[in-house]
């Protein structure tokens, strides 16, 4: 039995077990606590046929992408600044460490006080909560660059641009992809919190509506939309990763 098949079977058994347990619970508890699985599925599927619901999902996805893109670009700049200059590292690293220690909810409060519109607030929260992780992960990848390869490339006297293109970028790409995978999950959690307090649309806002309507099936359906979105994007990143890192040897026996 190959590894992929085993993994898929186990995943299905695990998820199927939870669904089954939920359905059994729905027979013993009222629907506002444990709604039946078909009711959740119906609400979940309804989201994909209703244009307004799709627009809400799209708004959340767009906020996640926008926040992560800005955060990633900022993270790249900060990581390279820290990687290339010891003095910059001494200034920036403790600052990012401090920023990373601030809870997402504190950023939400700060954003509400500082910014007027919904979108700037959410963008600010997204960037503030993910920029440190991006910077640290890209810095780690940059610092793990092989000294041997660096000297070898340098022996051909490349321009700075060529050095970045031929050596530094290929070295940090795996770290960047890992950073995207990790931060995607974080961003999905944070965006919902941000939308809960300030937005008039998006999955977080929809969750707030379901809470006010006391609709557990709706809340779960919207939660599932977010989870499915994250899983799909992670799969896309994994595909890009396996395409970009196809050169890596694979061991026949796993550790």
């Amino acid at each position: 039995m190959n590894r992929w098949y085993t993994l898929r079977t186990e995943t299905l058994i695990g998820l199927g077990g939870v669904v089954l347990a939920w359905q059994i619970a729905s027979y013993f508890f009222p629907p506002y606590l444990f709604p039946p699985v078909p009711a959740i599925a119906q609400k979940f599927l309804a989201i994909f046929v209703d244009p307004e619901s799709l627009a809400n999902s799209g708004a959340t996805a767009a906020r996640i992408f926008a926040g992560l893109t800005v955060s990633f670009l900022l993270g790249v700049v900060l990581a390279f600044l820290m990687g290339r200059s010891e003095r910059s590292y001494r200034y920036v690293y403790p600052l990012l460490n401090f920023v990373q220690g601030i809870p997402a909810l504190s950023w939400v409060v700060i954003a509400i006080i500082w910014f007027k519109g919904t979108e700037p607030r959410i963008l600010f929260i997204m960037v503030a909560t993910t920029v440190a992780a991006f910077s640290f992960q890209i810095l780690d990848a940059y610092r793990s660059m092989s000294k041997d390869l660096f000297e070898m490339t340098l022996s051909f006297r490349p321009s700075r641009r060529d050095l970045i293109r031929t050596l530094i970028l290929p070295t940090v790409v795996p770290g960047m992809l890992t950073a995207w995978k990790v931060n995607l999950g974080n961003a999905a959690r944070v965006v919902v919190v941000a939308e809960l307090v300030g937005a008039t649309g998006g999955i977080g806002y929809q969750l707030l509506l379901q809470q006010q309507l006391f609709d557990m099936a709706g809340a779960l359906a919207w939660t599932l939309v977010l989870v499915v979105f994250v899983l799909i994007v992670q799969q896309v990143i994994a595909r890009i990763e396996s395409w970009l890192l196809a050169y890596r040897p694979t061991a026949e026996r796993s550790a």
Partner: protein
Amino acid sequence: MSGQDANPAAAAIDFRDVVKRFLRQDRREESFLAVDRLSFEVAPGEMVAVLGRTGCGKSTMFNLLAGLIEPTEGAVRVLGHDPFREFDWFRAKMAVVFQNDRLMPWRTAIENVELGLELLGKGEKERRAIALGWLERLGLKGHEDDYPHALSGGMRQRVSLARAFAVNPEILLCDEPFSALDELTGQRLREEYTQLVRENGKTSIFVTHSINEALQLGERILVFHRPARIALEARVAGGDRDTIRRRVLAAMEVREAVAEQTDR
């Protein structure tokens, strides 16, 4: 050719009273001497082997020559220029073959050979043709699209040789490139290297800790003692190899004993 009587203007490589001190990382105020008033010259087209025991400063001399580090005192001139201060001037004039192959794992064999040409700004067609020619010449036809992990140690080192020769440098610097290979592969590569250097009229500095390798790859042998300084200079061409071997061995042993006593 001795350090005193050669004409510096004609020398491809000229080390003049070079000193290199490194600060100890843990004790900033202390330094250790890696190269001690090192002087030697290499004529254009000459093949010189630099021999010495581990830790004698061969690699430091190598990095000075490659322009990767700056001398503390003295002057290093290669083709009349300073390899550290005029770093960019040496583009395509000097190529390095390192102890390990240093191939980029994300590039195929041919892409690795193309690296130097790519950095020189050569067009895709031209660099592919040059790289293919060198891979074929070094017996790697059919392995162009293999990634380094799919190649044996000998094949990888051949790719790194091809990468160095592909830019058509005037000077080749080799830092024990065949030391990690088995005897047969190493011997074959040494023969190929000698042939390529002679055919193409390159100046070659070959750093090694093996007397046999030095005898095979050097028209002249420079024996280093610790810290790097010339302990013996022996001309191989026309000389009796056993006599040279005995002299080299004696120089290495005597100098090592002196170095060990000094250390104590």
